[in-house]
């Protein structure tokens, strides 16, 4: 019998600015004993140490690009610049990364500059969020330098400029403050995810484009079987990067954060090369050799959540899609997520907020998934939110999902139709009962980061049937 620690964490109240403040981090582990004979694999990544100083790492990256010109060269002679940062639901420590960016802008004498928050269709940051995300010193400096701050308001069509249509048919309207800038740089968190990858061009789409652009991309490509963890060359991520190219994205600065939320790498360079490199480095750490290849798929996956994720299952639950890749059809995914909910400027939201959008389609079944697809086609489902709950739902049509969560979430889970419990032991042994004494178990403590290496599709030529991953 082996004993395994499953991280059971979240950040409270928001992820931003919390990476140096342990008091804002809800850290706990759940312990689980698994019979040795049942264990297929327990995969704990070998993470490099964090950088000593994130600000200096960013400064060094800007002057040592992975590809393309140094940031200072990019700015030389430029008349305007847009710095696009991610929002309150991403853990990128913008407050630490912005000083060398502002140093370079100031040194180059670029007076027409702005910071734009890539909040896509998510509600904008409050003043408190902005203060945490950007930091007081940076805000004071922005005021001194006349650098404006803008957020995405995708339904306000007057704020957007038409750019064109991507090769896959997505019409692109770009935020005017970005469109009018000669140099565009994004600062984000690079990680694999179920859309292929996060960060880089994704701060352009969905970050700073219009409602129509977000929904066109998401409706068309989220349901694709080729949109999955590691599918950088899949249709969704490829459309995103093409959009970013069309929008004139000059360069990206990409941080890798470890499972404690600390910066472990910072890669700057031309779009899309620098982000590709960041994802390659991410995959070197968090992708694992797929045990399914030799031993067959797992019957049960036990997944944990960790600090760089946050307070809503809507954000922590992405690992359902990565664990899906190594669990057999009809198998079980046990997802340990406290999901304490969040207090915002417009009210308190429970830990299962937005997961309730799947309720009209419950129980999850292949037949009901057809209703989901019809409602996506009919634009009856808002895919800025559906881009998360729909993939989780789709997994639930094929696999049994059990949440292990805080007691306060149980009533809402039951109302939605989600299987939930406060006890990992109870969830595990119920799954063992379903799958029998020979059930094979995989432990993915950091499932939101972890992906089987053979799911990686970095180049278009690599795109092929997922069945080759799942066997």
């Amino acid at each position: 019998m082996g004993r395994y620690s499953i991280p059971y964490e979240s950040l409270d109240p928001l992820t931003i600015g919390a990476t140096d403040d342990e008091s804002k981090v809800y850290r706990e582990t759940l312990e689980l004993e698994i019979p040795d004979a049942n264990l297929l694999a327990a995969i704990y990544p070998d993470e490099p140490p964090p950088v000593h100083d994130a600000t200096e790492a960013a400064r060094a990256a800007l002057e040592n690009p992975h590809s393309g010109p140094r940031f200072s060269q990019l700015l030389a002679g430029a008349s305007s610049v847009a710095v696009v940062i991610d929002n309150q639901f991403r853990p990128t420590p913008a407050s630490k990364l912005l000083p060398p960016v502002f140093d370079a802008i100031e040194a180059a004498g670029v007076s027409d500059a702005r910071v734009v928050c890539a909040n896509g269709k998510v509600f904008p940051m409050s003043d408190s969020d902005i203060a945490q995300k950007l930091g007081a010193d940076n805000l004071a400096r922005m005021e001194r330098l006349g650098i404006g701050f803008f957020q995405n308001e995708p339904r306000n069509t007057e704020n957007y400029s038409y750019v064109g249509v991507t090769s896959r048919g997505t019409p692109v309207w770009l935020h005017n403050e970005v469109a009018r800038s000669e140099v565009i740089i994004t600062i984000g968190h690079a990680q694999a995810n179920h859309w292929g990858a996060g960060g880089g061009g994704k701060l352009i789409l969905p970050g700073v484009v219009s409602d129509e652009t977000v929904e066109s991309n998401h409706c068309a490509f989220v349901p694709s079987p080729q949109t999955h963890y590691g599918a950088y060359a899949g249709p969704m991520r490829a459309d995103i990067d093409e959009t970013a190219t069309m929008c004139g994205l000059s360069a990206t600065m990409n941080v890798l954060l470890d499972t404690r939320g600390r910066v472990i790498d910072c890669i700057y360079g031309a779009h899309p090369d620098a982000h590709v490199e960041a994802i390659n480095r991410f995959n070197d750490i968090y992708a694992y050799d797929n045990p399914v290849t030799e031993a067959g798929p797992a019957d049960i996956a036990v997944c944990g959540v960790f600090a760089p994720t946050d307070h809503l299952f809507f954000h922590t639950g992405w690992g359902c899609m990565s664990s899906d890749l190594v669990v057999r059809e009809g198998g079980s995914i046990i997802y340990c997520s406290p999901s304490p909910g969040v207090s915002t400027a417009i009210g308190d939201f429970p830990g299962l907020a937005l997961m309730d959008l799947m309720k009209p389609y419950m129980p999850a079944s292949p037949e009901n998934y057809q209703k989901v697809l019809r409602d996506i086609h009919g634009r009856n489902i808002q895919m800025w939110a559906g881009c998360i709950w729909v993939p989780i739902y789709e997994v639930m049509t094929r696999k049994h999902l059990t949440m292990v969560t805080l007691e306060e979430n149980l009533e809402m889970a039951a109302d939605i139709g989600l299987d939930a419990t406060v006890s990992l032991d109870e969830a595990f042994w119920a799954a063992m009962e379903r799958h029998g004494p020979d059930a094979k178990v995989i432990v993915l403590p950091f499932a939101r980061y972890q992906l089987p290496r053979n799911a990686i599709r970095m180049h278009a030529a690599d795109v092929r049937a997922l069945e080759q991953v799942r066997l």
Partner: protein
Amino acid sequence: MTVRGISGRGAAGPAAPPGSAREIKGKTTVVEVLRMFPGGEAARLMSRLSWPCAHCSGAFHEPLAVAAKRHRNSPAAVLEAFRALCSAEGPSEELLQRAAVKSTDR
């Protein structure tokens, strides 16, 4: 040094609630109605209607009547349901079901 002077800052921040917090009209925005019910009653009603509005950037500008049309619910029934949140008993199950019906017309 104040940070209020930064261009664009706060432009999308929560709007002030209407003069009377109980006057819910078709033009009342999603954020305004959310702020009228800090206990989360309005957010739960939106959840019941399968609206993601409480988390959407559109919440700051979108009036309830427009949101109802966008999500193919009856504006009249939706308004009635939100207004019923002001009563001690809240909206009835019959009203909730009526408000949650999605039109098949597009």
